[in-house]
């Protein structure tokens, strides 16, 4: 077991704390089958892989992959980049990634954690490893994206309201819990490099098997497979991780 990055500096009143879903991603990404897959896909001496985590939250996942790049990707010349719609998460995640990297001493290089929607500010074809633990809980409404709200000079009530809005963005997924995930899936063919691979976490209500089939039907030769799962309930996995990659 590789050590889990410390997130004790993360404020849980406005940033998603590492939970079962986060840990499932850590376990999956460091599993024997995934490290073998990734190391075969990104041999040393090829250009540095760019790892993008969308929705970093605390940064625990990106920090883990970056700090243990050598064990996971077989090389430590890895560039790590994150995005989140929550500016507090952007700051906290950068700190988590730096802390874990300095403890491991052989980690990859953090570029930045930028404030933004999904992968929409990335150059097409640039991302080699994309990771997303989305807001996946089915909800009646999808929260709006934060507009430029001030972080200072807010009344206590306004601050409380802003923080609960930010937290709702971390779990509320709208119809089938898939509204945000579907938008990310749509970006994948454009943003992933030819050798690129994406890991997306889904819950049972997201209908993972249907999602996998749908991706296998994308034009241009794509495959998807469930490569990690947890929380068996009556023969069904509560959470799972889907790996998505180009086959040709």
């Amino acid at each position, binding site marked *: 077991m590789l050590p889990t990055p410390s997130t004790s500096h993360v404020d849980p009143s406005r940033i998603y704390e590492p939970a079962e879903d986060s840990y499932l991603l850590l376990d999956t990404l460091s599993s024997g089958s995934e490290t073998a897959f990734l190391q075969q896909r990104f041999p040393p001496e090829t*250009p*540095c892989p*760019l790892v993008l985590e969308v929705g970093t939250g605390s940064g625990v996942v990106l920090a883990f992959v970056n700090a243990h790049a050598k064990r996971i990707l077989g090389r430590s010349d890895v*560039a790590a980049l994150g995005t989140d*719609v929550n500016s507090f998460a952007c700051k906290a995640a950068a700190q988590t990634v730096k802390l874990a990297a300095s403890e491991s001493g052989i980690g990859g*290089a953090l570029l*930045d954690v930028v404030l*933004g*929607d999904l992968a929409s500010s990335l150059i097409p074809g640039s991302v080699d490893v994309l990771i997303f633990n989305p807001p996946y809980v089915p909800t009646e409404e999808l929260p709006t994206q934060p507009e430029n709200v001030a972080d200072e000079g807010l009344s206590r009530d306004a601050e409380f309201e802003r923080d609960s809005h930010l937290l709702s963005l971390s779990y509320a997924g709208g119809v089938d819990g898939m509204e945000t995930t579907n938008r990310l899936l749509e970006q994948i063919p454009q943003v992933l490099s030819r050798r690129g691979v994406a890991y997306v976490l889904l819950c049972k209500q997201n209908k993972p098997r249907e999602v996998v089939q749908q991706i296998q039907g994308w034009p241009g030769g794509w495959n998807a497979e469930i490569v990690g799962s947890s929380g068996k309930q009556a023969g069904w996995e509560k959470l799972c991780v889907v790996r998505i990659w180009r086959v040709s």
Partner: protein
Amino acid sequence: MKLLTLNFLTCAIKTCKSNPASFPLHPKDAELEQIEIDMNPIFIRNILPRLDWVALKTLSSELGLASLPEDVPTEEELMGEDGEATQTLKDLHVLLMETGIASGRLCCGACGHEYAVKEGIANFLLPSHLV
């Protein structure tokens, strides 16, 4: 934000992606910062093939930084025979990894939209009328 990050970012507006003028984003009123970090020579060597050299040259000249060589440095120009990092490699490390934009704006050359950078964090969230 690091200058290297700008090598991977473009305008968040969908219709700008196919317009070559949307890359690189142009810094405006940029306040630069210098943050020391450990150098990983292998990283610099293997990130080079991923750089848009012309864009990087544009960027550093727009920021008033020392001008870059005309062409992408070769492997020999980065590491000596003994595997030691050359000055060229060290300079690239400083430019890409240690030089950052602390505050300012990033302007899209295609649509003119400006993205704010505050406390080193770029904000690519779009106002709702542009989504």
